[in-house]
């Protein structure tokens, strides 16, 4: 039962001239057994370090790490019962595909007959049977990726760590592999901890996404929840393509005033009594108003923004229209055939609007203040 639990994991690096650099601060999360969890974040956010700590390739400075209920903080990597797929696949260039796949089993002195059986099974599942005698250099990118996967599979480990395993593939192959990986995980009931900076990978494959930022966790949620209710401005701006439109606003009674506009005459004021209703009284002055491009429609709505249409872009089935709101540009996504003439207003339903505290970046909700998990 390889449930993975991280409690208050921290890590600092010794930088140049003895300056210590805090890489991770108090990381807490749990990956239940059989779940696919993605660590998502921009490069340098600490997601790879977290993964390597789980793998045992690096040691945490503090906190507790449990795999299947056993504390493994001081257990060497090889004894943690996990497999790992590396970003560059870590294939041994001088060994054949079969030897690469069986490398770990030989190290673990698994009997030959069983080795061969497992190899045949993995090769069948990954469609590598024809390539077993080749060297990695003779394989395509996708095949190499599958060899790396094969090595993880034959190990029999139920916990598999993956460090950006698809980042070296082209777009088409990546999409195929996403499906394939997810299917495999489901079929074998693997617990997967998956590092990526690609939100699409995280959103399409994971049961649970752990969004990381600067050595900490921003939000842990299922992909739908992450999209529908981002816990902070940072998450909101990171998830979605194009990302959520975010407007800096100031509260003025029941009005929201768009910041950054010059002069009183141009000041954009938005009537927002309906939106603010139900929010606590101690609501901060300075807010961020967020609306996803697909939640805005040309014309008036429950919330109405004065807007000037500036250009549009056809994206196949969708059309992306840019409007100017005050001094800011706002993206709107509509169906391609929904080619309405541009008015001078944009509307959104109240439930599609997100409000954040500008100082803390935390999401503000009608019923309660949702602070970003820290």
């Amino acid at each position, binding site marked *: 039962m390889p449930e993975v639990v991280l409690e208050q994991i921290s890590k600092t690096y010794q930088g140049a001239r003895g300056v210590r650099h805090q890489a991770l601060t108090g990381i807490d999360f749990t990956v239940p057994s059989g779940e696919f969890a993605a660590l998502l974040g921009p490069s340098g956010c600490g997601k790879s370090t977290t993964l390597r700590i789980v793998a045992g*390739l*690096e040691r945490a400075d503090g906190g507790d790490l449990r795999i299947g209920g056993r504390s493994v903080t001081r257990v060497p990597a090889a004894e943690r019962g996990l497999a790992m797929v590396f970003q560059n696949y870590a294939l041994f260039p001088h060994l054949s595909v079969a030897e690469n796949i069986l490398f770990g089993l030989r190290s673990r002195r698994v009997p030959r007959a069983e080795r061969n059986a497992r190899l045949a099974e993995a090769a069948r599942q990954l469609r590598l049977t024809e390539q077993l005698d080749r060297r990695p250099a003779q394989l395509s990118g996708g095949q190499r990726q599958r060899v790396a996967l094969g090595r993880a599979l034959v190990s029999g480990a139920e916990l598999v760590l993956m460090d950006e395993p698809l980042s070296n593939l082209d777009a088409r192959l990546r999409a195929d592999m996403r499906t394939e990986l997810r299917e495999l995980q489901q079929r074998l009931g693997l617990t997967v901890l998956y590092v990526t900076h690609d939100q699409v990978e995280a959103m399409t494959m994971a049961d649970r996404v752990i969004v990381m930022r600067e050595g900490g966790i921003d939000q842990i949620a299922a992909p739908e929840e992450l999209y529908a209710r981002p816990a902070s401005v940072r998450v909101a701006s990171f998830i979605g393509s194009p990302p959520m439109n975010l407007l800096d606003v100031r509260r003025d009674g029941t009005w929201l005033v768009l910041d950054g506009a010059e002069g009183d005459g141009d000041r954009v004021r938005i009537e927002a009594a309906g939106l603010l209703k139900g929010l606590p009284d101690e609501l901060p002055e300075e807010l961020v108003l967020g609306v996803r491009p697909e939640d805005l429609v040309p014309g008036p709505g429950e919330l109405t923004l004065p807007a000037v249409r500036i250009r549009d872009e056809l994206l196949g089935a969708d059309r992306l229209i840019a409007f100017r709101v005050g001094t800011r540009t706002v993206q709107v996504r509509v169906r391609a055939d929904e080619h309405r003439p541009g008015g001078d207003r944009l509307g959104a339903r109240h439930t599609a609007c997100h409000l954040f505290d500008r100082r803390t970046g935390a999401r503000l909700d009608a019923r309660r203040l949702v602070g970003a998990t820290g």
Partner: protein
Amino acid sequence: MDRIVSWPDRVETALAWLAGLLWTAPLLYVFVRAFESGTADLSSAWQAAPFGRYYLNTALLVTGITAAQLVVGVLAAYAFARFEFPLRGPLFAFVLVQLMIFPEVLMSENYRTIAGFGLLDTLPGVGLPYVASAFCVFFLRQAFLGVPDELVEAAQIEGVSRLGILWKVFVPAARPSIVAYALVSVSTQWNNFLWPLIVAVSDETRPVTVGLVRFLAPETGIDVPRMAAGTVIVTAPLLALFLIGQRQFINSFLRSGIK
């Protein structure tokens, strides 16, 4: 990376330090003996032979030979790496075979050649047989082969001449290799003994290595402090240079792609 420290790690660390000790102890010993009576032994050794002159000779030889080798080698490597021409294969094979026929094996005939030029007991006489280095040509060709075609093509589109491309594209791109080769060459020439022993007779041409042996020639038996002092005089400058520049030194090796 600080991984989980296991006992094999500790064994390896101990081994590393043991090796470090084994490799440095003899040198430390020599330095300690050289300074056991202050600097008296050093100054008497320094005065016993014209080490200053020997150093100058070595410095001239080392820089002259290395510079000449690089010029000759860069040109030849460029030809082999960049151009197609008849007999390229056989000519390169010829260079490769010469890797193993170093001037020392042909010392008798090289001696005659140098004598024929009237260059016995001169610095050019010591240096000339080393100017064409097969190793240099081979090594730089490898480095030049690694220069991406786009760089060359970009320069060609800019209208840079062929020599210009060599200078502006190949040489900068292969700089780590050139530096690495230069370091190997400097160290080889600094070490050179047999050929200068034959050719360089007078103090005006003797390099440090030959000078050291001449300095030690008196068969009075072994005077350790004096010997240690002489050795320190000969080795200290290069050791100092190395210690100052060791990071660059090792790094240029690492980057040169000696594999």
